[in-house]
């Protein structure tokens, strides 16, 4: 390890160290509020370190690769690190009420250090360019979440923890199996070397054994990652885990964890499997999975009464839309990688949309202990600000103009038509109509129903300035990025230069 490695790894190193410091501090008699602020500051510093690597403010690393080519810090990984860190920052900042509540105040130290460790795992994951590193960082990101899910030792929490643990172990095993196939066929674990070795194989004629082996390994790898990405048919855990999880953790899972899985699968497929014949094969797999995922997610969400379960199904549906971008490899003479750009734009917009919703839901559930949608009746009379944040978020999830959700859907569907999947766009738009039904139902309860017999009125919802602040900022960004989308699109364009 040399100086360059240290520079490239600076955000990760900083975050791991601060995770340990925060754990130790929480054992001493330091005020809880200070620790929370400290954790927020360390997240901001690591975001700045990531920005530093992108813009080169303080120092320019001599090379983007380090650790014997198993780790890279290119713009693509920095983009996703930024998303992951920002999602965590907003979630932790907005959940202040939750952390100081009776339930959590006694083990905030464990809570925050575990989240930080998981973030480090995800950051390593989006940077890794080698199969073993991918696997190890995947485990690092998943294991702390198991503890976090059951940290309250409630029945539902433990159930969701165990569910997540077993399924995550199972999917890791499948993933490893796929990696083994790949290693056996190509003789390397480095993604670039794998690509070279595949490009030398003749996949069209004769060598059916190798071609079939590659397809098997692709299928197994997709299956392994689909667990993290919430792709049908590996989505079963989502609603249960979301329902049982502490709400901030559900928010964290829905954005940070999902983005990291998408990032690594984009990197893996667009470097190792970027052979043109192979691309057509896996893009079709992705297209079919996307169609199934969004349809199933939306259909199951239609009849949900529990808001957290509903949001769980909604993340499944959203994963389907994001997957369209992965499937959208433009055909024709020039293969460029615009589809991923759509996915990245979608993920970034989804961050603000979903986390603003989750922050408000966290506060409501904390006060009322009521997770039903009916519990939101007449919420606009109880708290107009929170309601507007929620409604803007939900409209963005529907894909109503002028929100970011609309623009990302337009871009994603545009790419899917461009790459020869008009049917996928058609399924996508019909799905968004289906989704409108259940999102509008929530809006109906918030805005139109009278606040009768509900606990919201009596619970005197605390005005939490921090939550309102981030919620409003998120809502403004949701609208702003929808009206002027090119800032993000430019960023994502710079980010996909890894190929």
């Amino acid at each position, binding site marked *: 390890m040399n100086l360059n490695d240290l520079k490239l790894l600076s955000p990760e190193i900083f975050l791991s160290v601060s995770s340990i410091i925060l754990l130790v501090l929480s054992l001493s008699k330091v005020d809880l509020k200070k620790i929370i602020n400290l954790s927020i500051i360390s997240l901001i510093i690591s975001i700045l370190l990531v920005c530093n690597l992108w813009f080169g403010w303080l120092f320019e690393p001599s090379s983007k690769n380090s650790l014997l080519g198993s780790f890279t810090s290119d713009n693509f990984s920095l983009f996703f690190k930024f998303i992951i860190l920002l999602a965590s920052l907003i979630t932790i900042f907005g959940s202040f009420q939750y952390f100081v509540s009776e339930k959590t105040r006694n083990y905030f130290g464990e809570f925050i250090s575990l989240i930080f460790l998981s973030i480090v795992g995800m950051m390593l994951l989006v940077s890794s360019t080698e199969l073993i590193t991918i696997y190890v960082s995947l485990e690092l990101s998943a294991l702390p979440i198991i503890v976090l899910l059951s940290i309250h030792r409630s029945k539902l929490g433990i159930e969701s923890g165990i569910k997540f643990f077993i399924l995550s172990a199972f999917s890791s095993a499948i993933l490893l199996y796929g990696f083994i196939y790949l290693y056996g066929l190509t003789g390397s674990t480095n993604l670039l070397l794998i690509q070279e070795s595949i490009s030398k194989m003749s996949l069209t004629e004769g060598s059916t054994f190798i071609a079939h082996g590659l397809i098997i390994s692709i299928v197994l790898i997709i299956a392994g990652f689909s667990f993290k990405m919430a792709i049908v048919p590996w989505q079963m855990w989502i609603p249960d885990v979301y329902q049982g999880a502490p709400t901030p953790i559900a928010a964290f899972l829905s954005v940070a964890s999902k983005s990291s899985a998408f990032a690594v699968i984009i990197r893996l497929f667009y470097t190792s499997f970027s052979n043109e014949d192979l691309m057509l094969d896996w893009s079709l797999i992705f297209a079919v999975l996307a169609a199934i995922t969004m349809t199933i997610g939306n259909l199951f969400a239609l009849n949900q009464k529990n808001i957290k379960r509903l949001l769980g199904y909604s993340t499944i549906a959203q994963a389907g839309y994001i997957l369209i971008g992965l499937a959208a490899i433009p055909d024709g003479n020039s293969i460029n990688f*615009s589809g991923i*750009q759509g996915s990245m734009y979608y993920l970034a917009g989804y961050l603000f949309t979903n986390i603003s919703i989750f922050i408000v839901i966290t506060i409501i559930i904390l006060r009322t202990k009521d997770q039903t949608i009916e519990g939101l009746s007449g919420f606009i009379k109880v708290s107009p600000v929170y309601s507007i944040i929620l409604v803007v978020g939900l*409209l963005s999830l529907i894909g*109503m*103009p*002028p929100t970011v959700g*609309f623009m990302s*859907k*337009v*871009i994603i*569907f*545009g*790419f899917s*038509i*461009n790459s*020869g999947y*008009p049917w996928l*766009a*058609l399924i996508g*738009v*019909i799905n*968004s*109509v289906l989704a*409108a*039904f259940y999102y*509008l*139902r929530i809006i*109906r309860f918030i*805005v*139109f129903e009278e606040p009768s017999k509900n606990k919201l009125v009596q619970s005197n919802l605390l005005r939490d300035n921090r939550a309102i602040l981030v919620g409003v900022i998120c809502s403004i960004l949701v609208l702003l990025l929808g009206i002027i*989308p*090119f800032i993000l*699109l430019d960023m994502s*364009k710079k980010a996909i230069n890894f190929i």
Partner: protein
Amino acid sequence: MFDGILSITIFLPVISAVIILFFLKNNNSIRYFANFTTGIVFILSLLMFLNYDTESSGFQMIDFFEAWIPFDYLRSSYIVGIDGLSAPLVLLTGILGFVSTLASFRVEKRVKEYHIWLLVLISSVFGVFVSLDLLLFFIFFEFELIPMYMLISIWGSGRPNYSAMKFVLFTLFGGALMLVAILSIYMSADVGTLIMVSIPELNIVGIPDLIQYSDLLVPASFIFLLFFIAFAIKLPSWPLHSWLPDAHTDAPTAVSVMLAGVLLKMAGYGLIRINIGFFQNTKGFTVYDVSIFISIIAAISVVYGGIITVRQTDMKRLIAFSSISHMGFVMLGVSAIGTSSSNTSIAGINGAALQMFTHGTITGLAFLMVGYTYERTHTRHIPHLGGLWHKIPLIAVFFFISGFASLGLPMLSGFVSEIMIFLSTFTIWPIATIISAFGVVLAAGYILWMIQRIFFGVKPPDEIFSDEIYNQIEDVKKIDLLPILLLTIPVFLVGIWPSFLTEIINLGVEGILR
């Protein structure tokens, strides 16, 4: 290029909605401020209509920012402008926007939110008629759903949640299909632009020119179908009409006026601008080939809507169903595209465009009168009413005017547009036209029968229509005459002197047909 007046007109209502949101608290000041805004918007739209230069034709008052979304794969620009087709519709929106706020003076529930949503609605409707970029058009087309959903759900009567949800889901479905169609056109390598018209002065070559004979990613017939379904839902045309009666019946008066008056016209506008404008000579498909189907659907809409209307017992529902029948005439006029004689098809499409304007004013007036009657009688059930003539003569007179215009009495505006449509389509699709003409007979039936039952005869006995309410009924106040006259003047004006509209419309339609 930036003229400004059009952008100001679009965004003025939204800006004033924001001002109301943050600065105004008092209910009355909100009402006056909203009316003040829509009054200015009305004057601006009138000015734009009058200033439209009929000598030079084409697109005028253009505001153009080329790089709204300067992204490689989605190059969209902010471009608005009016031509002969959209100028009357802009005027119509201005009139009805003003009328709808004037008619909302007696709304007492959540006044602030109500006016905010109404103003946002007016803005988005304006946007639809003047956007010349497909994505911009689509954004306004979809965005109008949010205020409509809120307005019907919160301030509606009957089953508002059900009706609002039905309305939104139907329109979203159409919009979803339209999005696929828009992207399919845009993503085709030969087209690659989202600007829906060609403007020689700005060196803009739009989709109508680029799409000619070019290769599309998706068959042109399929794209046409997607657009057609989207607009047929919005028009609404049989068999996709079932959202309309519910939405109308449950919406508050001002929203019904907007819905029937201008929102339905978005569909007619889209049919002419996009379905006819784009698909005249695309590869392997022209709109001429399918115009017979359009005429059949139109004839079914007219007659089916008319027959169902006769059976209605709710005043508002009756007017709502009559809209299906009358918007069927618009589609019939559109089907006049299927002839080699360009004069005939221009006349038919002129008729369709004129019918949109006349129907907007006539039905707006009818809904306004139904609203006024309902406010006084507290029931819209026709058999429970009767003998109102003596109590509310002014309302009755204007109710008659709207009814007679709607059934096509000469000298009133409905007659002009209907006769234009019939004369041109008769030479092309005689059978469909003859069948549709029965729609006029049916209209005479249901309109006269309704007027007779509501206003004439004797008052029903006390247990059906209580004497107490009947005795308290008073006629409209003088201030209410303002919205009424705003709608009545165009009805007479178009009926007596149609050429002030048809001249401009003709310029627009000639620009679209090639």
